[in-house]
């Protein structure tokens, strides 16, 4: 008994010393290592958004201040992924500008490798190459037809890949970076992303055949990245409904099918353990965030949908919302896709940012504690007994245990999987039919079972919409409160509670947690 008391006392002291604090965090699924942001964030904003990683289209965490102190902390490199642009193909002739740009990549790589543990680190060492080589004004510098465009993209990305590999032979290169699966390619008529992918792989075989370092694309690439914005039907009929979400993960699956088929044809094999990153996603629609219109709500639905789809996709390894920053004082700050807007360098999270911080929806999982963590002491801090396992910030977290410990960025967090712990047997095994335009829910999101659902077209009740008015607000809480009191007075399992959001037949604190995570 005495020993036990001393152990508890010791743990308490450790916790105090380490700044450990109990903290119930709004929102679930916040520990997804897939979830990232595209934009210039710092550690603080990244944590607020509950995102695991970010990139900013540059090689350093703060692209405008290469020597800024935050560029060189281990914490930031646990979350940051460098991106190198392509090089203009017109400069292939060896002119001074081209050589300077290649030297520029080499010097930046040397800086990264000499000052951080990023290089040659099996858990890290990712580099994004290219940014929208198919989009005018982005990485597409010249080329007025599809063939030229693809050849140029292959030359540029190949040159960049060589410079990175020369400095970091273990580099994991995520390549391509196509602008959008569906979007028409500016002024190149009749070209689809499928054509571009096939052309890219074919041209790589042709252009780099004699290069000892990068001849075989299957050995060079670790994966691919591309962007997902509006779908075909939305693009061609803008103004109707931009909350439409890709059907499951059809897009990434199709992407990989094409890539792998072409890779087998040209290189005789596919990339081992290839990764697929959606490095930008969202909408190009301008919906001012001050305007809480129905359109804005659809926009939010799109965010929920995209996050949940990609989070649960077995082929997407990472995804990032565009955009996490904003012009200082610009009117665009308060508009459309921004997770943050700024004014005089003071950053304010937007409604979208707040929503993003609560996604993906995994109502059974909740982050119970968060605090500083020092390596091996993690387990003790999380309660000991080996339940806590360390996971790097880049590792895909699959919550299958009661408790896991996340050691990303030297922070220790405990996920309490209440659903797993109690494992209520579903009272119905009927497979739900997703409501078009509503959140796509897949495992482990609870689905409508024997609960009384909202009528078709209304946001799913499983998110906290007790009165089925399409909104999740204080009125839904009031219903929960009323029913909670009724349930406590007569704790009967029923299938017609309005606020039984997780469909376990009861009105409990778990339902309140779901409402809190989704209330707007």
């Amino acid at each position, binding site marked *: 008994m005495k020993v036990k008391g001393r152990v508890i006392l010791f743990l308490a002291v450790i916790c105090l010393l380490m700044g450990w604090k109990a903290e119930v965090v709004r929102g679930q699924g916040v520990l997804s290592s897939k979830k990232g942001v595209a934009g210039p964030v710092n550690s603080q904003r990244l944590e607020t958004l509950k995102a695991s990683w970010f990139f900013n289209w540059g090689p350093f965490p703060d692209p405008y201040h290469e020597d800024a102190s935050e560029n060189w902390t281990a914490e930031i490199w646990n979350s940051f992924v460098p991106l190198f642009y392509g090089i203009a193909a017109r400069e292939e002739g060896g002119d001074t500008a081209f050589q300077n740009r290649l030297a520029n990549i080499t010097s930046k790589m040397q800086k990264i490798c000499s000052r951080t543990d990023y290089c040659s680190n099996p858990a890290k060492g990712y580099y994004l190459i290219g940014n929208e080589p198919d989009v005018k004004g982005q990485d597409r510098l010249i080329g007025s037809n599809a063939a030229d465009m693809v050849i140029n993209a292959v030359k540029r990305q190949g040159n960049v890949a060589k410079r990175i590999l020369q400095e970091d032979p273990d580099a994991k290169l995520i390549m391509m970076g196509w602008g959008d699966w569906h979007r028409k390619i500016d002024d190149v008529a009749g070209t689809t992303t499928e054509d571009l992918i096939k052309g890219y792989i074919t041209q790589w075989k042709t252009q780099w055949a004699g290069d000892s370092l990068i001849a075989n694309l299957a050995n060079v690439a670790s994966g691919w990245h591309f962007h997902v914005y509006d779908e075909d039907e939305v693009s061609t009929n803008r103004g109707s409904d931009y909350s439409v979400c890709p059907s499951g993960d059809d897009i990434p699956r199709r992407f990989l099918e094409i890539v792998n088929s072409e890779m087998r044809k040209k290189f005789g094999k596919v990339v081992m353990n290839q990764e697929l990153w959606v490095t930008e996603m969202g909408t190009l629609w301008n919906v001012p965030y001050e305007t809480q219109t129905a359109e804005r709500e659809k926009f939010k639905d799109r965010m929920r949908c995209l996050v949940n789809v990609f989070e649960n996709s077995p082929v997407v390894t990472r995804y990032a919302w565009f955009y996490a*920053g*904003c012009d200082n004082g610009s009117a665009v700050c308060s508009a459309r896709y921004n997770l943050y807007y700024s004014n005089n360098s003071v950053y304010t999270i937007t409604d979208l940012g707040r929503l993003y911080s609560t996604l993906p929806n995994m109502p059974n999982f909740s982050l119970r504690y968060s605090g500083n963590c020092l390596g091996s002491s993690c387990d003790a801090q999380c309660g000991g007994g080996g339940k806590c396992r360390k996971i790097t910030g880049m590792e895909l977290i699959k919550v299958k245990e009661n408790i896991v410990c996340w050691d990303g960025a030297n922070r220790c967090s405990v996920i309490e999987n209440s659903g797993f712990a109690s494992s209520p047997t579903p009272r119905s095994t009927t497979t739900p039919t997703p409501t078009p335009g509503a959140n796509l829910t897949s495992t482990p999101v609870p689905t409508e079972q024997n609960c009384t659902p909202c009528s078709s077209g209304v946001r799913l009740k499983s998110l906290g919409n007790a009165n089925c008015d399409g909104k999740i607000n204080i009125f839904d*809480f009031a219903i929960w409160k009323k029913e909670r009191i009724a349930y406590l007075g007569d704790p009967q399992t029923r299938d017609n509670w309005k606020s039984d959001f997780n469909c376990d037949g009861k009105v409990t604190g778990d339902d309140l947690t779901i409402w809190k995570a989704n209330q707007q």
Partner: protein
Amino acid sequence: MKKISKLLLMVILAAGFVGGLILIKRNQDSRGRASYSGVDLMVVSGVTKINIGRTIPVAVVASTGTNKLTGFDLTIKFDKTKLRVALVKPTTFELVLTEIDQNNGKIRVVGIVEGNNPDNFLTGAVRLVRIDFEGIAEGSSQIIVESGVNTNALTGYNPNGDDQGLGITSISGIDCTVSETVSPISVPAPALNFETKEGRDSSEDYVKK
């Protein structure tokens, strides 16, 4: 003829009066269906004058009568050029959302009652939230709950009905006067001071959207 005219006029006036009463009643009925009872909302404070750099603590109070308050979703507006939000502090309600929009001079707070014993739910004059505003420039600013059909919401415990919403019957605020500071207090630097910008950097590596 005159008598007939007078009589006719009186009949018309009486009919108009009765008609008006019916319309008022109908209006009240329709509002009654939207919410089962009414509440007065007030912003109150012990002081109305502050110096620049000093704070004025205000409380948002709901006069609920006998209604048991369970939650609120309110937006309070102020003059962003004169005041800024320095502190938001919960009272007996758990704040599940605090959204400070300094750019537009608004703050939104969503609070919910804790506990599940209706006997403990507050009635009468209930303090919902405390907000401290800091004076940032000379002048006067009204601090008031923003009015609007969809802006605010209050809920009460109504065990016998489906409608949990409480109607807002009146809104009142305060006028805060900010004067030049006598003993200046330095304004703390923004917590998030990480300079970033969109656009194209001089190096092509940094081309962004």
